[in-house]
């Protein structure tokens, strides 16, 4: 119980060395009236075995994807995490270190972050990536902050087909940043470049998602061009796993690329901890939030890595910093790097193609069974919306009774879609799993 090392004899010797007679005396600076004078009302201590049993009981009351065939996605996906990711993350020298403030002690983490930054830049077509943000929502708020200061403008445009979680977080941050948030509606599952262009007038940035929340492929190059026409910074919110198949945002003119990194290397884990990524063109490097690792040399001329451009950061710039971020998500970003290295360029492309092929198979089978696609004429990536003919909530309940979770009920966030679910199909679902989904939905 607990993880303390001192013996009674140690304590006595230490108190003597300090020159006090009791542990109590060490707290003499705490005024009497603010001292806590009863025992904490917490459950009694548990030894390792009892603790394990208690948490195993709690875990057993959750319907995880090993017990329910799940087609849930909507921002968090059940991709396969290779065993090598777990093995690397359990290396204690990486797991139990902190921010690499002392580079000579931390070349391992620093080089890993440099490699992660390189991988993110390669995938997104950007010049610079930070070492990670909290998740795919907060990096969107970060991008708004960068854009506001880069353009001097105080309006941000977000497409309605962007993940509602992202939109909600941006709106929460907006008052403090002094930003006005404008949403552009989707038209039959995607965003109209003309509407976006009109909304983008006087905007600092335009955030759109590719593939969007419905899984539909946006006309991303046209959206980026529409934003650029209005001199607003185009910001693409992308899925790393899609970028073996889909074009890099840097290639079609985006100023920043952001997103939720969970798909690459992280378990679903009830939504965290995961990592957000934020990459940008060189124009914005000195406005970037968060840690950035750079290459340098030591006194012997050997290559090494350090935290760099730190004059952006809170510990140096304080109230003039580009962000308050300190603790980030390095370990989860490292998981992403390991997964992406394991996939390689071929594997990443195949992963995207497999997700798309399975998605097409699922759509075909569901349409054949009499269901209607919500956005039938759109190309989708690994997720699509389907109408169930009656309340999605009821159908989800009936399907779960058969051990299948058919997906996210869209009515929660979008009007007129109470009968629709968003079905996610990753490489972990087989054609037979999809057949089972169709069978259960047809009977529900």
């Amino acid at each position, binding site marked *: 119980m607990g993880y303390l090392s*001192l013996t009674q004899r140690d304590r006595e010797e*230490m108190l003597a060395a300090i020159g006090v007679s009791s542990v109590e005396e060490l707290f003499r600076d705490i005024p009497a009236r603010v001292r806590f004078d009863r025992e904490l009302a917490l459950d009694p201590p548990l030894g390792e075995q009892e603790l394990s049993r208690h948490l195993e009981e709690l875990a057993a009351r959750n319907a*995880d994807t090993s017990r329910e065939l799940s087609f849930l996605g909507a921002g968090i996906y059940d991709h396969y995490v290779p065993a090598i990711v777990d093995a*690397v993350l359990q290396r204690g020298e990486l797991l139990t270190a902190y921010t690499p*403030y002392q580079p000579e002690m931390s070349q391992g983490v620093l080089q890993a972050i440099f490699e992660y930054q390189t991988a993110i830049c390669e995938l997104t077509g950007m010049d610079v990536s930070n070492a990670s943000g909290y998740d795919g929502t907060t990096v969107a708020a970060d991008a708004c902050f960068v854009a506001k200061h880069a353009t001097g403008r105080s309006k941000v445009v977000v497409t309605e087909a962007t993940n509602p979680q992202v939109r909600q977080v941006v709106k929460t941050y907006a008052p403090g940043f002094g930003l006005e948030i404008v949403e552009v509606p989707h038209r039959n599952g995607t965003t109209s470049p003309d509407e976006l262009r009109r909304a983008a007038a006087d905007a600092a940035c335009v955030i759109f998602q590719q593939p969007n929340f419905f899984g539909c492929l946006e006309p991303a190059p046209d959206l980026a061009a529409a934003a650029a026409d209005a001199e607003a910074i185009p910001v693409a919110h992308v899925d790393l796993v899609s970028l*073996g198949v889909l074009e890099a945002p840097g290639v079609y003119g985006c100023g920043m690329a952001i997103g939720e990194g969970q798909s690459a290397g992280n378990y679903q884990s009830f939504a965290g901890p995961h990592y957000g990524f934020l990459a940008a063109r060189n124009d914005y490097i000195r406005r970037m939030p968060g840690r950035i690792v750079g290459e340098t040399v030591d006194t012997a001329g050997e290559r090494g890595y350090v935290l760099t451009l730190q004059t952006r950061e809170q510990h140096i710039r304080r109230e003039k910093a580009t962000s308050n971020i300190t603790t980030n998500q390095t370990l989860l970003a490292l998981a992403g790097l390991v997964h992406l290295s394991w996939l390689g360029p071929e594997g990443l492309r195949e992963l995207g193609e497999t997700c798309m092929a399975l998605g097409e198979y699922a759509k075909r089978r569901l349409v054949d069974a009499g269901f209607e696609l919500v956005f039938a004429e759109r190309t989708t990536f690994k997720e699509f919306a389907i109408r169930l003919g009656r309340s999605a909530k009821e159908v989800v309940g009936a399907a779960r009774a058969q051990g299948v979770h058919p997906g996210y009920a869209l009515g929660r966030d979008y009007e007129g879609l109470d009968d629709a679910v968003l079905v996610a199909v990753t490489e972990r679902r*087989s054609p037979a799993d999809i057949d089972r989904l169709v069978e259960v939905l047809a009977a529900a």
Partner: protein
Amino acid sequence: MRLIFEKSQSGRRGGELPKPDLPAADVPVELRRASPPRLPELAEPEILRHFTELSTRNFGIDTGFYPLGSCTMKYNPRVNERLVMLPGFRDLHPYQEEDGIQGALELMWRLQEALIELSGLHACSLQPAAGSQGELTGLMLMRAYFEDRGEGDRRDTIVTADTAHGTNPASVTMAGYKLAKVQTDARGNVDVAHLRELVDERTAGLMLTNPSTLGLFDEHIEEIAAIFHDVGALLYYDGANLNAVCGLSRPGDMGFDIVHINLHKTFSQPHGGGGPGGGPIVVREKLEPFLPVPAVVKGGERFRLDFDRPKSIGKVRGYTGPFGVFVRSYAYIRSYGPRLREMSEVAVLNANYLLALLKEAYDLPYDRLCMHEFVLSARTLKREHGISATDVAKRLMDYGFHPPTIYFPLVVPEALMIEPTETEAKETLDAFAEAMRAIAGEAAENPDVVKAAPHGRPVKRLDEVRAAKRAIVRYGFEDHPDLAEPTAEPRQLEAQKGA
């Protein structure tokens, strides 16, 4: 050591994926990727060796003593790593229906209840992803609270201490407030006379760490609280140093209205080379309506997510927060129970013992008993022998220790901020003190060996100025610039490292 990209061989690959026998789907040509990303191409054994080699060039708590002040680098129990990998936690989707997440919600609710008890406040949100996000969330709550009272336009200023973590003033800016800075007095407390000059009806609140970053408990905390409450302002407790006072003094009892708790510090989430963390906030009753949505609530024997909070500030992070962090911290709290008080007592005992061993060899700017950490100064070593806090830090590496936080807090020149935590044995503290004293001796007798340190790490001192100037922040493949001329002067920023 080569980068993983430099080990890449075209045509090699790590893992294989299932390939269902299905027709390929079409991607419109204007959206299709034209040239593949240059990800590394390696076989799995080489990938594992690469990251294993990286790990040998790193230092964690598992490697040795890591007294990085204000970061609370305590032991991370391995059982927690096993528990977080239970499929019921690891493979759970956040949009699973409520009856499929009862275990997760119960764990979160129980963690909230424990944090409420430890902070002496009323309601908790686990959503913020780190301490600094907890700070920002707390300031958003202040804004929402004052706007609800019709005082939003008037109250535009937040007071922070000159000893504050840099996150405090940075959060103030991000929350759209003006900043006022209060000085520290001769005993290391907040200068109350100065504080009285700063606080008026325009003040929204105070952000304070107590014990402070000097490792000192503010002896005037009740008076400070009264100054703010008398003008209707709120007090925010930066919980970075909560490890000193669990079960001994509660922020709510000190007069604070909002607290964030760093789960990765006090409750032992592995720091992962920079993160993840967790920054739950706990508040007084009057602030509860403004907490982020959804709230995790209990009704009878059932747990549910409550979105119906019309006055809520909204969401500061996706979904319900970093759940894996909650699993580890909940497990940590359950392993101690009410003995968390003993955890803090030993943290403070260890710190005072180490202070007693070191106060002769280094300058001690505030000669008081400390709490969980203390701040020394290398001012005399610098003046007499030209040995800076950086030099001491680098030389400690040769003795097998991670350096303390240096150059912070800013009010102490050549600061060395040392936090041993409760999980260290006496012998470790003795060995560290011996190394620190030996370095002070070397500073006088053989300063060059200290100035050239470290001698036994994978790299020598690195040129931080050149790194910032060149800004090489990604591998450039065939266009990668050659930096390989040695740097005569290791130009390092004498800036805060740690905390």
